[in-house]
């Protein structure tokens, strides 16, 4: 194999009909994917959806139950991990605790008998600004530093394909954002193919050329970050990739240009071209930042959807923007983000407001949002991520009051 | 482990090339100077060129046998070319074929062997064994703690010695003294009843805490540390003890009589140095050598002519009743009769049950 050579440039990766079953559990149902050479590809999805498994299949640490894996056109499905021109930055770093930082970084070079491995390793460490700690052991480093060592250890090998398994997971928000920028710059400069796994949507969107949203072992939607964000096709994508206001109802009018849905008494129109389904009960939505808040009833125009009046039930200031949660009774609640251009919030808790948005900003989904989903913060509550039940709080409070 | 299948065969003799000999013996059983050297052994080495590895390896006939029996059964070298054990145990070794037949041509001094000892029932003609020393079992006490001294086995049971009395793990000596105290002729015909009575007496003394410990030759350590102040003892040991740890012990044959016994050399079946062992045995049958040993250990020597040689060293020595007992002394001592296999098994088990307590 080519692993004795530094990769000239990134290689493209192709997964064909991959399936992975563990005893008693199918982690990946059916996966087809092509990642062009030199691109930065992000695999985004909730915990347990099969992201790590996909990476491990590519790295050769796991064998697919079905399907083929091609790197740079060559079928590597039956090639062993240590013979694939691939390197991984592991979710848990997996730095060798018994070696110094320098030895860690030089490990891969030595295995391939690349000349002067220590000097090269030292330069890779300099790249991540850790050359002064070259002689330390991993456990003497902070989480962020370990992360950077893991990165250096992979990059130094100049693999045709670099796999990153939540490499920024352990960092705090600030450092995380900073590292994202750096990682992206490195990728652009060295021209390698990056396959980046994350469950942080902001991370995926700021870094990647292409984002694939994965859910329960399948890829739900794939595309450029903006395209994905502006036009989500499924409830899952609409909610996982940013937040959405969703309305479910019957299609009551439909033209070539637009379809209109009755959502709890209000009429919501979306462009036909932006709707996946055009008849029956469908779910339509709009992003909270696209929604404008009015303290007086706005004039109705055909190119805007207007809802009102509703009552502000929560205002929360988050610095850059203020979030309003507006209750529209049967139609549910609507979340509005207003960037803080002026000072302070424009509407106060409890006040009567109207909301509106351009019809062009709406979208229609291919599936119908679950009945249980409340507006605003809306996502499937699963066993490990379900929310605190507000409804039962009052019982306890009452009970505790007595006790 | 069943033991006693086919009899093992004697090892080939390498004495011609291997000038060493290893000897397992009891504590306080040979002449020893202050530096821990054995003068007679040094003399032997000087005379024959054979190095002797003398080991105090026997504390008790049974435990020694227990340690080496598996190797004996396989005809292997037990690490000793000769060992000194008591008559009854010698009898067992000979029965099981664990002893090599001696070459009397190498033992010219055997002519000096006391005539009564020449044809014991377990080894007529001394084909397998040769006596080393004989002695009495009696009572001894710490003269500082018990200035009045003791006279009989009964005295060991006095209340003020509670918990400070030792008895021997050698069944024939301990039980012999108790039976003699009961008026039993231990050399004659006695049976389960007599033995049973004595064993009950012993058990009572052990259970009520009168007896502190039941030991082999290591009873000497208890006397030294003064955990015990009185004990059933072997005659010569007390002399050695006094020499080693300050004159404060005394030995006596109890009024009802003591036991008389003999320890004998034999050559274990797996020893490849039988000739060397024979030379060693022969050496100790020189009357002068025998007298020198006797002067130290104060045991009865089986060597004719030793008395004269002893007199030459020190006339008092020749009168020592522990070494050269006269008729009168000998009449107080009795030999424990030999036991059948079944008796051995039964009485030994009874006795052991006391050692193990209950």
């Amino acid at each position, binding site marked *: 194999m080519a692993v004795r050579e530094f990769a000239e440039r990134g290689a493209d990766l192709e997964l064909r009909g991959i399936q992975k079953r563990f005893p008693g559990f199918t982690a990946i149902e059916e996966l087809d994917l092509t990642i062009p050479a030199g691109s930065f590809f992000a695999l985004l999805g909730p915990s347990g959806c099969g992201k790590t498994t996909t990476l491990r299949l590519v790295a050769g640490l796991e064998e697919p139950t079905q399907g083929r894996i091609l790197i740079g056109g060559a079928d590597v499905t039956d090639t062993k991990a240590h013979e694939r021109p691939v390197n991984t930055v592991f979710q848990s770093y997996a730095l060798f605790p018994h070696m110094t930082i320098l030895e860690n970084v030089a490990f891969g070079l030595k295995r391939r008998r690349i000349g002067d491995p220590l000097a090269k390793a030292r330069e890779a460490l300099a790249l991540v600004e850790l050359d002064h700690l070259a002689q330390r052991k991993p456990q003497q480093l902070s989480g962020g530093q370990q992360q950077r060592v893991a990165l250096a250890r992979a990059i130094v090998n100049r693999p045709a394909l670099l796999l990153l398994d939540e490499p920024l997971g352990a960092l705090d928000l600030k450092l995380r954002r900073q590292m994202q920028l750096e990682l992206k710059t490195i990728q652009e400069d060295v021209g390698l193919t990056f396959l980046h796994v994350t469950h942080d949507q902001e991370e995926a969107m700021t870094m990647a050329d292409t984002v694939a949203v994965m859910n329960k072992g399948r890829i739900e939607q794939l595309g450029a970050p903006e395209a994905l964000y502006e036009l989500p096709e499924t409830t899952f994508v609409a909610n996982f990739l940013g937040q959405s206001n969703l309305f479910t109802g019957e299609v009551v009018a439909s033209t070539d240009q637009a379809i209109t849905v009755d959502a709890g008494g209000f009429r919501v129109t979306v462009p036909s071209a932006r709707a996946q389904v055009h008849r029956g009960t469908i779910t339509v939505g709009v992003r909270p930042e696209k929604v404008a808040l009015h303290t007086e009833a706005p004039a109705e125009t055909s190119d805007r959807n207007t809802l009102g009046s509703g009552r502000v039930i929560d205002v929360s200031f988050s610095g850059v923007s203020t979030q309003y949660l507006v209750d529209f009774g049967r139609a549910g609640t609507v979340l509005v983000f207003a960037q803080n251009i002026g000072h302070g919030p424009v509407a106060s808790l409890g006040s009567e407001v109207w909301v509106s948005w351009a019809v062009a900003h709406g979208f229609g989904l291919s599936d119908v949002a679950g009945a249980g989903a409340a507006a605003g913060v809306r996502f499937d509550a699963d066993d490990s991520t379900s929310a605190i039940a507000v409804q039962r709080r009052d019982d306890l409070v009452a009970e505790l009051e007595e006790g | 482990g069943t033991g006693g299948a086919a009899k093992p065969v004697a090892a080939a003799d390498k004495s011609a090339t291997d000038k060493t000999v290893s000897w397992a013996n009891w504590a306080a059983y040979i002449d020893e100077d202050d530096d821990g050297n054995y003068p007679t052994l040094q003399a032997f080495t000087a005379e024959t060129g054979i190095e002797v590895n003398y080991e105090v390896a026997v504390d008790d006939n049974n435990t020694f046998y227990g340690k080496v029996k598996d190797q004996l059964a396989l005809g292997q070298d037990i690490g000793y070319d000769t060992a000194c054990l008591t008559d009854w145990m010698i009898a067992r070794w000979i029965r099981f074929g664990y002893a090599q037949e001696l070459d009397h041509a190498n033992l010219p001094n055997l002519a000096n062997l006391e005539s009564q000892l020449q044809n014991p029932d377990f080894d007529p003609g001394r084909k397998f064994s040769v006596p080393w020393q004989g002695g009495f079992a009696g009572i001894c006490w710490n003269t500082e703690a018990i200035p009045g001294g003791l006279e009989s086995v009964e005295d060991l049971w006095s209340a003020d010695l509670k918990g400070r009395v030792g008895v021997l793990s050698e069944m024939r000596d301990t039980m012999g003294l108790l039976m003699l105290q009961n008026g039993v002729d231990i050399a004659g015909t006695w049976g389960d009843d007599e033995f049973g009575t004595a064993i009950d007496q012993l058990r009572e003394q052990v259970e009520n805490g009168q007896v502190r410990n*039941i030991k082999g030759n290591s009873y000497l350590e208890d006397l030294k540390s003064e955990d015990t102040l009185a004990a059933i003892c072997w005659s010569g040991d007390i002399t050695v003890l006094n020499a080693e740890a300050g004159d404060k012990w005394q030995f006596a044959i109890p009024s009802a009589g003591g036991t008389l016994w003999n320890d004998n050399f034999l050559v274990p079946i797996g020893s490849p140095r039988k000739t060397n062992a024979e030379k060693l045995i022969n050496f100790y049958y020189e009357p002068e050598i025998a007298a020198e040993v006797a002067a130290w250990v104060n045991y009865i020597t089986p060597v004719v002519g030793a008395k004269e040689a002893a007199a030459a060293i020190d006339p008092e020595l020749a009168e020592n009743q522990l070494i050269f007992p006269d008729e009168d002394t000998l009449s107080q001592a009795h030999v424990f009769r030999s036991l059948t296999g079944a008796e051995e098994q039964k009485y030994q088990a009874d006795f052991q049950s006391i050692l193990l*307590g209950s």
Partner: protein
Amino acid sequence: MAFAAFATAEAQPQAPRRKSRIALFLLLPGIAYLVLFFLAPLVSLLLTSLQAPREFGDIGQYDYAFNWQNYVDVISAYWPHIVRSFGYALAATVLALLFSYPLAYFIGVKARRWPLLQSLMLVLVIAPFFISFLLRTLAWKQILSDESFIITSLKALSLLAPDAHFTGTPFAVIFGLTYNFIPFMTLPLYTTLERLDVRYLEAGSDLYASPATVFRTVTLPLSMPGIVAGTLLTFIPAAGDYVNASRDFLGGPDTQMMGNVIEANFLVLLNYPAAAALSIILMAAILVLVGVYVKRSGTEDLL
């Protein structure tokens, strides 16, 4: 140190691999060794325990048979020793636990701030291993002999009856067993306590538990694996020990344990079937006790 390992609850099962050929290669030599030198002797011991005396045989001569009566015989002859062995071992285990727990707690929790002191103290706990345990026992025997300074002073102070003594008593044997097995108790305790997260203790006191309650409800249960490992490592060898109780060491005729009985039957009485039967009984009894104990303390994964 390594006993420690005993106290480790097993880590999460990791992804098992394929290739059982490698597993076979790794397991075979060691397992074959144990089969050959542990299991086979155990089987012959079982067969020996059923032997019968040879007809008209000499002392120590037996033939294979199915003489289960041997078991009845040894139990009726030696039941006091069986009871005594377990009694002494239990007493020694409890004493060693009481002695070791505070010590292990000090080394493992309190001394965390001073790693050097911590490791020094650990060494001192292990240190007795390197001085033969027979010598240590004999040293106690001398230190506590009747005419020793300690015993005579105690008698002079009337703290001890004039005819009382230490060596050769059950107390001495239990004392010796306790002393000799303290490292086996302290080390596993240390290992669990060393890993004890003090944040649990803080959480306990945050939730209104007094120090004593924190100890009872948090510390003690969390150190259970160490307690179980320590008590097993002490109890098992103590129950089978025969050196401490030996008449040449700290014991006397009325302190003999099963180990001594087995030894005497093997080496002195040459009653191999009895010795083998006793061995099997001892082992079976220990296995049953261990099984029940481990089940009840909820630490099955320890085995």
